[in-house]
């Protein structure tokens, strides 16, 4: 059967998603801004709505740039809020941003004349339908963003894990926060167009959480996260073929199942370890 060649591109796409999101997820979980990807994706969708409102083609380059500008404005908001208010949790601001951006998109659509039904599709990608061009383009873009993060990894990690120490070292938190959210928003917006909100959320959060069960060091957490993401992608795609299920949702549920398994293993080995240390 020609089933294998058909699945090569979706699998490659899922590897690219694993590569960048398992890394970004470490930051997101450390910062405790779990839903920031949903908020940024919604802001990008709002940008696309505005583009339609002024008469642009929703899939054209103009609409793309407007979405990007909106994403950067969201990044600006998040980086300012963190440094300005200590008492208000950032997650509250993220929730508000999500709600307001969604509502504003509805308002904009109500004033648009042409077809705006595309918008709901922006948040539900179909990873099976990814094209060769998309895979290549995304690989290059994420490669550039990944190298940028690699070069400045010390700064990025420090502001995520220990912002006070970063400030003491004279690093501009506002600037590096903005760079983080801007590159993050850029990645999330592109990923959501390929795989949809649910799948992107899982690639971001689950590997990082799974890795935290077993490791503390960033390096080991990344290694566990990447391994988990790769194995889950392969298993999810395999299950979706075997059981004739929609691929994206199958991968999401596989992520959930594997995480539960990892938690059980962690629980068992943890008990075992404490027994040994108690006996010693």
């Amino acid at each position: 059967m020609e089933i294998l060649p058909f699945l090569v591109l979706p699998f490659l796409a899922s590897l690219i998603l694993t590569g960048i999101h398992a890394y970004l997820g470490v930051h997101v979980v450390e910062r405790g801004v779990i839903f920031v990807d949903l908020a940024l994706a919604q802001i990008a969708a709002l940008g696309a709505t505005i583009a339609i409102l002024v008469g642009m083609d929703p899939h054209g380059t103009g609409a793309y740039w407007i979405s990007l500008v909106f994403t950067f404005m969201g990044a600006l908001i998040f980086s300012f809020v963190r440094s300005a208010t200590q008492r208000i949790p950032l997650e509250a601001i993220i929730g508000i941003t999500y709600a307001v951006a969604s509502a504003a998109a509805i308002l904009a659509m109500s004033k648009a004349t042409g077809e705006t039904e595309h918008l709901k599709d922006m948040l539900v990608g179909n990873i099976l339908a990814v094209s060769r061009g998309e895979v290549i383009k995304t690989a290059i873009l994420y490669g550039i963003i990944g190298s940028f993060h690699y070069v400045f990894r010390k700064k990025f990690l420090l502001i995520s894990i220990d912002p006070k120490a970063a400030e003491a070292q004279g690093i501009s938190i506002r600037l590096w926060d903005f760079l983080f959210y801007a590159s993050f928003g850029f990645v999330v917006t592109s990923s959501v167009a390929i795989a949809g909100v649910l799948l992107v959320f899982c690639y971001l959060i689950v590997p990082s959480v799974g890795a935290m069960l077993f490791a503390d060091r960033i390096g080991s957490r990344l290694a566990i996260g990447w391994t988990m993401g790769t194995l889950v992608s392969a298993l999810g795609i395999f299950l979706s073929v075997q059981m004739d299920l929609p691929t994206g949702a199958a991968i999401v549920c596989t992520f959930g199942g594997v995480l539960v398994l990892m938690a059980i293993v962690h629980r068992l080995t943890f008990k075992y370890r404490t027994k040994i240390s108690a006996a010693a």
Partner: protein
Amino acid sequence: MAKGIANKLAELDPADAAYFQQRFQDFDKRLTAAEQNWDAQMKAYRGRKVVTYHKSWPNYAKHFGLDVVGYIEPRPGIPPTPGHTIELIQQMKRDNVKVIMVEPYFDLKTPNNIASATGGRVVVMLPSVGGEKDVTDYFKLFDYDIALLKKAFDETK
């Protein structure tokens, strides 16, 4: 339907009943002529096999004798499974199905992907008046859709 509207209007406003009747007859005449024209244009394509996004063009396909052999998304709102998509691609190749009819509000990624795998063509057809600036009435709607379909059929023989 048009006759019903004319009758109701005449009932509400008996003074203008003759005018409504005359307008209805004019519309009916124009529609009959247009239908003959559309049927004539589509006659060469009777029995051609097509794929649609959902089960969404049954009357259209029946009227013009198009044979809908499959759907991109058989369960509305649930993304297609790999098995279904591969089967559809194989069926399209086997039966030489080249035309995929899609409404403008569906995402084109999946249809485009299948079209490129089968050498087919995605035709974004309008389901109602107003989908494009120039499509201002029922007549222009069918003119528009038929022109698109004919072009796709001709170019993918």
